[in-house]
């Protein structure tokens, strides 16, 4: 079958590549129907990556957050019509003790390899997770939630001091989900969210406390922290954390910056801090995400960080969705009907 793959060939320019679909007996075929835009996609779309990176990675289909329905499964794991989420990480050669999402030879969709902007997607069965019964709009952001689960799982392995008060720096979608997952996983801990935008912070009703980062109380302190800002915010947030975190705390670094970020390493050493870099996720995190979305009230909380669902019936609609995303405070979901 000739599959339509909607590739970004240059900033703000998408065309169709026609490619034979892999119908091997080990491939599950999924028709994507809801997908979400990530900051990384937006950076490619707007041409904000270095020219050398764009030249190397384009043409490429964007989007690595998507749900869909199974249309064919010769492996027998799924029923036709079953709602699933798709894992964009294709693991490389296993290394003992290393998560598949950190292997240097792993392939990640919409980062050098075609993402989910396709008519149909073919995947091995272990890259597909059932989420039957979950609202597709919330299922569309499963990958984003799974990144939060992965970070929290790694935090649990790294932490050695009490988890009384955890600070989450960042008032965007990632900060929202990380703080939500933390509250779910550590209901007794105080979850504080530190951001800049009061309106956005008002959405974080699950958090115990919210603060403006420019007006933190003088005695403010946290046991551990998650940096979820990205961009130039990495510098300010990271160093603020290093100032206010208690000794031997764990700082989870999750925001992506195009530039190198200087941290106050003297204080990192003096406080004996642990800095953990966190990126992407793998199957156990997706399974935890689906269970989370099925837990009472959680899907509704996730829905609050989805700003808009844009109908997509044409390439022009894709452009419209990316443009809308620039002004949306939280996530933009595409209802993919192509």
């Amino acid at each position, binding site marked *: *079958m*000739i599959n*339509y793959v909607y590739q970004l060939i240059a900033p703000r320019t998408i065309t*169709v*590549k*026609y*490619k*034979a*679909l892999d*119908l091997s007996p080990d491939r599950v*075929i999924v*028709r994507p129907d809801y997908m979400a835009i990530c900051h990384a996609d937006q950076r490619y779309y707007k041409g904000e990556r270095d020219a050398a990176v764009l030249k190397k990675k384009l*043409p490429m289909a964007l989007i690595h957050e998507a749900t869909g*329905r*199974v*249309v*064919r499964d010769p492996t027998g794991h799924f029923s*036709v*019509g079953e709602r699933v989420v798709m894992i964009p990480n294709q693991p490389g050669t296993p290394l003992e003790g290393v998560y598949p999402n950190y292997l240097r030879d792993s392939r990640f969709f919409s980062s050098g390899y075609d993402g989910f902007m396709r*008519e*149909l997607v073919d995947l091995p069965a272990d890259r597909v997770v059932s989420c039957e019964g979950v609202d597709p709009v919330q299922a569309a952001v499963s990958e984003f939630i799974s990144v939060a689960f992965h970070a929290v799982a790694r935090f649990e392995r790294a932490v050695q001091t009490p988890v009384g008060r955890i600070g989450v720096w960042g008032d965007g979608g990632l900060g929202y989900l990380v703080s939500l997952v933390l509250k779910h996983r550590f209901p007794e801990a105080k979850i504080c969210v530190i951001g800049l935008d009061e309106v956005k912070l008002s959405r974080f009703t699950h958090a115990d406390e919210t603060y403006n980062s420019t007006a933190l109380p003088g005695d403010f302190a946290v046991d551990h922290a998650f940096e979820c800002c990205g961009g130039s915010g990495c510098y300010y947030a990271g160093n603020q954390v290093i100032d206010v975190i208690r000794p031997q705390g764990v700082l989870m670094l999750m925001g992506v910056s195009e530039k190198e970020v200087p941290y106050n390493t003297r204080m990192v050493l003096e406080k004996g801090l642990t800095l953990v870099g966190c990126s992407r996720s793998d199957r156990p995190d997706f399974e935890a995400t689906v269970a989370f979305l099925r837990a009472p009230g959680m899907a509704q909380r996730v829905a609050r960080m989805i700003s808009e669902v844009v109908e997509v*019936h044409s390439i022009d609609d894709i452009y419209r969705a990316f443009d809308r995303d620039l002004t949306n405070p939280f996530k933009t979901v595409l209802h993919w*009907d*192509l």
Partner: protein
Amino acid sequence: MIYAAVLAGGIGSRMQNTDLPKQFLELGDKPILLHTVEKFLMNARVDRVYIGINPDWQTYCEDLVRKHLGDGERITVVPGGKDRNGTIINVIAAIEAERGLTDEDILLTHDAVRPFVTQRIIDDNIDAALACGACDTVVRASDTIVRSEDGETITEIPPRDPLYQGQTPQSFNLKLLKACFDEMTEQERAILTDACKICVLKGRPVKLVKGEVLNFKITTVGDYQLARAMLMMK
């Protein structure tokens, strides 16, 4: 039930000095016909695909299905009629014999040599046929249409705005389509080769479904070259 009829009954024009009907020409890793059939097999709403094939090529087609599509679980190969309508009638007869007809059954009819149809077009056809009883896939006419009665001089240049170019699928409530065929005389059947036109002449509303420019029919060597080039794009 939702049925698809992939119409490959013709052996008409040849391409590339071969005696192979064009629906069997290779496109990438398999014949054009199989790419088209797979488009419908990959739509979970389509229950069964009928391939209407010229009787002289039936075993050839069955071999291809077996070779490329495994057990062909959702496929029936049906001998085509002497023209397009005849092939559709044979497909309807095969459905009726195998499964019987119900009031809700839908039939999507599609040219075998349009492998670039999309899942969105297929879905929109199903929805429109369910809602309206009949639909035709079209794109807005992009060229000026010129009408000439004698083939020498222009009779009329109709305004382009209300003009569309017809593609396929054309989709129908199965019983409605069968009733339309049953009402036709032999003479009408010979003249009226477009199933949507039959519905229109019988006073049935036919809804428009938006097609795609690239859902084109591979009929000439140029079309075939274009299709191959599209698949080779980096």
